């Protein structure tokens, strides 16, 4: 989309940011989740409570952190707690509204893999691993997932199940007694997928401007269900684009001039 005036990654971040309700408490990972969360905070959701697993609660960074524990996160936080407290009292405590995850692989029930590509014991690619994701996926009231859409990522079968989505679909997540509702949307650079209310299989429900359903189906490693009434994602507003670009620009400057 060279003439849309914005990139597909920008569309993805903005679409993700829009899903964040003002006032929600939000457990944020690094990368796109952090960008989307801060974009939301700087636009329609100023009262969003950002929580990073480093123990920083209610932080208001002026630039995107490179790590989940950059100094600015703790300096601008309402409260900084230890990591055991963060995982026990706050995440497991069930008080986080929304978890926001990325993934290397995702399957049709929004289970995700961030551990290995290939066999666990002899992987072709060793990924960073679980981090906080399994318990974010389990304990947040809702989970959003954001990743680029292609067949390497949207796979028929995960090489490793790192974090539980809707398991084998239907009521299998409930039967396993995972505390939270699980993933409620997957936001990609092509569109938005949401789980079917009954089968919990991810279904394409919104296309970003200029993207076709065929393109999304082709980019998915399983026969993707497409909603009968397919919506089109509203293009980025001027404000959204400006705030996101300003944020990225400030971030780039802040992380450059040190070494």
């Amino acid at each position, binding site marked *: 989309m060279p003439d849309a005036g914005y990139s597909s990654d920008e569309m993805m971040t903005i679409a993700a940011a829009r899903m964040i309700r003002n006032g929600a408490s939000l457990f944020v990972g*690094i*990368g796109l989740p952090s960008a989307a969360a801060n974009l939301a905070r700087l636009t329609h959701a100023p009262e969003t409570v950002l929580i990073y*697993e*480093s*123990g*920083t609660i209610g932080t208001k960074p002026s630039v995107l*952190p*490179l*790590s*989940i*524990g*950059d*100094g600015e*996160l*703790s*300096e601008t936080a309402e409260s*900084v707690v*230890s*990591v*055991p407290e*963060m*995982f*026990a009292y706050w*995440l*497991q405590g069930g008080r986080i509204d929304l978890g926001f995850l990325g993934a290397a692989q995702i399957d049709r029930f929004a*289970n995700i893999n961030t*551990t290995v590509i290939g066999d*666990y*014991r*002899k*992987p072709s*690619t*060793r*990924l*960073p*691993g*679980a*981090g*906080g*994701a*399994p*318990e974010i996926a*389990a*304990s947040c009231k809702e989970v959003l997932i954001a990743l680029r859409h292609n067949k390497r990522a949207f796979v028929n079968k995960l090489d*490793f*199940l*790192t*974090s*539980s989505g809707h*398991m084998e679909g239907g009521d299998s*997540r409930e039967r*396993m*007694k*995972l*505390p939270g509702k699980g993933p409620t949307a997957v936001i990609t650079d092509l569109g938005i997928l949401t789980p079917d209310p009954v089968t919990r299989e991810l279904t394409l429900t919104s296309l970003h401007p200029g993207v076709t359903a065929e393109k999304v189906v082709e980019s998915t490693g399983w026969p993707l269900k497409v909603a009968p009434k397919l919506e089109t994602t509203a293009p980025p507003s001027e404000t959204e684009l400006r705030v996101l670009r300003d944020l990225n620009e400030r971030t780039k400057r*802040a*992380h*450059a001039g*040190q*070494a």
Partner: protein
Amino acid sequence: MVRDGDTVALEGFTHLIPFAAGHEIIRQRRRNLTLIRMTPDLIYDQLIGAGCAAKLVFSWGGNPGVGSLHRLRDAVENDWPAPLALEEHAHAGMAAAYAAGASHLPFGVLRGYLGTDLPKYNPKIKFIECPFTGEKLAAVPAHRPDVTVVHAQKADRKGNVLMWGVVGVQKEAVLAAKRSIVTVEEIVDRLDAPPNAVVLPSWVVGAVCAVKGGAFPSYAQGYYPRNNAFYKQWDGIAREREGFQQWIERHVMGTKDFDGFQRSLEAAVKHA
């Protein structure tokens, strides 16, 4: 205080990572270590690439916001410079294991790992039943490192240690360990700790050592910021074995201490 074959935890969650102490372990050519750390970060990439480690106990092994830890990957994918056994957890399990260690409990309990493949590959993750409700919960054995090393902002002359900001699992890691070492930015006459601050009293700390800047390229809040640019550069330094080896030889093995390391890095930047 670190011996070959020890189980060692160098902790610091993005903040106050004890790089100076890690370099000293590399300089002393320690071998066969079991390294525990939630986020291996650059410090364990260096220890692994330098051949100090036989096993890694961890929950997230990446260069935050940048990408892979190439030395960690090379060890896991290609057994270079030596095979590296993995004991892999999630953060919540690692935190519970440290807290259990600090509490002298043999195991920690958490609502975790449900539905994930991690228990298939890590026999140290088990499931137990609540004796009151019958609910299924995860259990992990306590971490009890032989040695824990952390970095903190200040110690007083008696050896009481104060840290603030992102304090991670440092207190738990120290209290869980058989021996402990704390490096600090400075030694002061009075700690002047605010109420309820994170203080490690001298009698639970094995040794305190002043190493100014000892958390570089991570940060010490109130002293210096995280050097995010170095974290990005590390991706290039560590990507190939040769580049990594040259860097370690020149800047770590070729220097006497962390001060020498920092001067050596500065000199390299000037000549670049």
